[in-house]
């Protein structure tokens, strides 16, 4: 007997929650307990009084599993609202990466040239290294890191995806 695998799709969810201790453990724990995937998760408080946090979760699963993820998140007591941005329609997704590249000579020049193409900013420099700050969609960051590997990438830190719907309507 073998375990069957099913085809999945990627969804970006926005979850507003009470900003209280343990909330992240609750959310992350739900995903592990029910066997859902987390590709990335970001969280920060977003209201003036710091009482509400916004969590952006990128998950993957069959459409049926995505429905369940939304419903299961929605029934948690500290959760105010769950929005499936992927299903809602056009939205903007961005993440930020800090990319450290070490090297000298041609590699160094090539790294700078590529950074310019990707509109990455140099936020730290030594005679043998750069730290680039780059923002964009996940694919752009992936591609940038891939290219930088060829010219001396030694370390990456990424924020994960923050996302918001397009247009004037708020969630």
């Amino acid at each position, binding site marked *: 007997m073998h375990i069957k695998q099913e085809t999945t799709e990627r969804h970006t969810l926005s979850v507003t929650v009470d900003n209280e201790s*343990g909330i992240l453990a609750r959310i992350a724990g739900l995903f592990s307990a029910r066997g859902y995937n987390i590709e990335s998760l970001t969280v920060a408080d977003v209201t003036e009084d710091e009482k509400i946090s916004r969590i952006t979760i990128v998950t993957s699963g069959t459409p049926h599993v995505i429905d369940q993820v939304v*419903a299961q998140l929605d029934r*948690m*007591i*500290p959760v105010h609202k769950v929005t499936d941005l992927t299903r809602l329609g056009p939205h903007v997704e961005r993440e930020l990466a800090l990319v450290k590249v070490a090297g000298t000579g041609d590699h160094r020049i090539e790294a700078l040239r590529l950074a310019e193409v990707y509109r990455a900013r140099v936020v730290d420099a030594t005679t043998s290294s750069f730290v680039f700050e780059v923002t964009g969609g996940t694919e752009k960051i992936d591609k940038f890191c891939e290219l930088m590997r060829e010219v001396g990438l030694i370390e990456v830190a990424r924020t994960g995806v923050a996302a918001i719907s397009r247009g004037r309507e708020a969630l």
Partner: protein
Amino acid sequence: MTAELTGADILIQSLVDLGVEVVFGYPGGAVLPIYDALFKQKRIRHVLVRQEGGAAHAAEGYARSTGKPGVVLVTSGPGATNAVTGITDALMDSIPMVVITGQVGTPLIGTDAFQECDTVGITRHCTKHNYLVKDPAQLGDIVHEAFHIATSGRPGPVVIDLPKDVQVATAPYRKPSLQALPHKGYKPQVKADTALIEAAVEMMAAAERPVLYTGGGVINSGPIASQILRELARVTGAPVTSTLMGLGAFPASSPQWLGMLGMHGTYEANMAMNRADLIVCLGARFDDRVTGRLDAFAPDAKKIHVDIDRSSINKTVRVDLGIVGDVGRAMEDMIKLWKARQHRSQDMKPWFAQIDEWRARNSLKYPASTKEIMPQHAIRRLWEATHAKKPIISTEVGQHQMWAAQHFTFEDPNKWLTSGGLGTMGYGLPAAIGAQLGNPNALVIDIAGEASILMNIQEMGTATQYRLPVKVFILNNEYMGMVRQWQDLTYAGRYSESYSDALPDFVRLAEAFGWKGLRIEKVDELDDGIAAMLAHDGPVMVDCRVAKLANCFPMIPSGAAHTDMILEPDEVIGEMDDEAKALV
């Protein structure tokens, strides 16, 4: 300025303000301040169990039989972890429960202190919500909110972890209003969307072969919901089946009653589900024990699902119409609309004629015996002797539980206490104790197996201490019968570790706890034995020796379709393939 109270007194005062009458608990180091506060008051009755697991199940039995939330008080560390099974059980079966656990003082949290455990972390997945209280000023609001969460929407257990220093520290307390509770986002939807109710009523009026498939949600919605269900069945003329958890919501004496459905349900209930053109699921959740093989489940039926928990809808079975709301309210709205539109149901005669053909299979029949007591027969005799008294029946988990569900029929809600979702052996005795405390004048019987009863046998002492006249009726076949039955079915009768060896003498065990002990060994002793059990006004344990190798039928093997039901014992011995072995 309001006078300040200690955290322990705030807790007690909150419980009093919430109308709590009974707390099931066990003291320990981290709850000593609360126990001292309990000692100094007379408004709340504390019931001392013998192990914290017993407290949680007793609270479940109390809640399920009274409709009020069960309250548990245990210490930190092992007190909390012992309660975890009962908390999980309450989550699975949607039982309203509030568990207060002691915790080491806040400066000690995280230091691996004596009797410290991460209670909030451990119980995060087995509660509807939980709290760690770090400030006595927040305690009152949290206790009130915990009860609100435990009892509203889909009920469930809530844990409040209370560090010892917070129990001692002082703060002002005033009874909060519901609007002032901390979690503003929690607003369960009670009233169903009118358009969806309209659609449901249209579908019901058009159905030629409808089935009302009801569950524990009808019981949770309150006794009135059971009355509304009867009215809905009356106006629509539809047959009614129920899950294990929903038994009693619809009277078994009704000609519209099909019996329980699912793995050990009746032939007529499962066949009706299979051939129905409309299934109306009311407060049930398409559990795997109910549906059998999903791709063969009710293939011709449109499906309506009414549930207060949105996540239950489309979780396993895709439905045509999902309705979020309280099932009692939703049924009431359906009846109103049905009457207002002067709907008449389709002619149900052909459907009931078909159902009667299935009923004629008499799927609950069992081999008669004069030499040994058939367990089904014992339950039927118990029913004969007690049903006029409208007893509350609890069970442990296993064959005896399924036989009780099949053969001990119910007319009213809140009379049937069983561990359905989690399937917890050892549930029945403490649940019976909790039910007896909540219903002092009721006849409460735990129908047990000899293996299950040993899992919480220590609670006999609780019944003795509080003079609770619970009856424990053990169907003793010297096997973990359901395990053995599956070994018959799946593993060619290799009885790996399923024999109950070295059993105690249950009669002498009963006497050791100050109970009356009785043994029934022969068929002709059965009625007298039951009469003797009922005649004694204190707790009684009956060791009823039943046929050792009887199995529970009908049965849908795990992962099989409703139409693949096994009706006869001789169809079962064999070995199954790996796919079947992997199913629970």
